[in-house]
């Protein structure tokens, strides 16, 4: 075995692209700011990730005390989704490649 065979009528999968968008290699990070209310941040984490209140609050306090919290490690596609959700709530969230 080895190598690849292209079957008639079948479009070969772009393996590199598929891998990069599906690998859970991106961290979603929330950064501290002096403006978002602490109960609001807890609420947003619960809403976006479906977390328990305790877990959401723990991450909120981590953001507050340590300046940032890694929220999840996901594929690029999922990480984009979460960053969009968090930013639409005005939280300072980014995705970073987990190297």
């Amino acid at each position, binding site marked *: 075995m080895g190598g690849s065979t292209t079957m008639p009528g079948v479009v070969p999968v772009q393996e590199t692209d598929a891998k*990069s968008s599906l690998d859970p290699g991106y961290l979603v990070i929330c950064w501290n700011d002096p*403006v978002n209310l602490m109960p609001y941040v807890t609420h947003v984490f619960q809403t976006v990730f479906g977390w328990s*209140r305790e877990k959401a609050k723990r991450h909120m306090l981590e953001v507050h005390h340590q300046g940032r919290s890694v929220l999840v490690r996901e594929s690029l596609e999922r990480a*984009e989704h979460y*960053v969009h959700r968090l*930013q639409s709530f005005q939280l300072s969230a980014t995705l970073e490649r987990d190297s």
Partner: protein
Amino acid sequence: MTLIERDEERVVFSIEPEELEALRWALLAFPVDTGFEFEISRYSEGAEIDEAQDLIKSARDEWESSLEQRIAAFVEDDSRFEAADGALRLALSFEEIEWLLQALNAVRVGSWRRLGYPEELPEIDAGEPDADRFMMEVCGMFQSSLLYGLNPESLFDGFEDPDEGEDE
């Protein structure tokens, strides 16, 4: 704005006419245009990051436009507010509370950006309050009331550490 009751479908508040005026004023300030754009990444670079940045910006524009429409419908609908004992009664579904929180926070954060992103918020001058600083307080007050309506325990966030070792 005071919590009256909450069940599985809605939360009911009592709101004074002056408060309602302030709520409408705050909501109609959405969106606060400051030219600010969120960055999608601080340290990562590459074509996929640029593409993600574009996708997120496009999704955010769509979200902003949809929220503006909801706000317009909400502030114009007087039938939502039933007169009750000199105040008004406002029943909100959980979904409505979610987008109201988003809108109010967007205005609060936008006002903060207009103030120049201060680390420490300036005191409010009672005689001649700065409009952006005052707007931040108004939005924060309504956000707190809505969060309290969803969960009264939210008042204590920031004053205690949660139990450690739970469900992560």
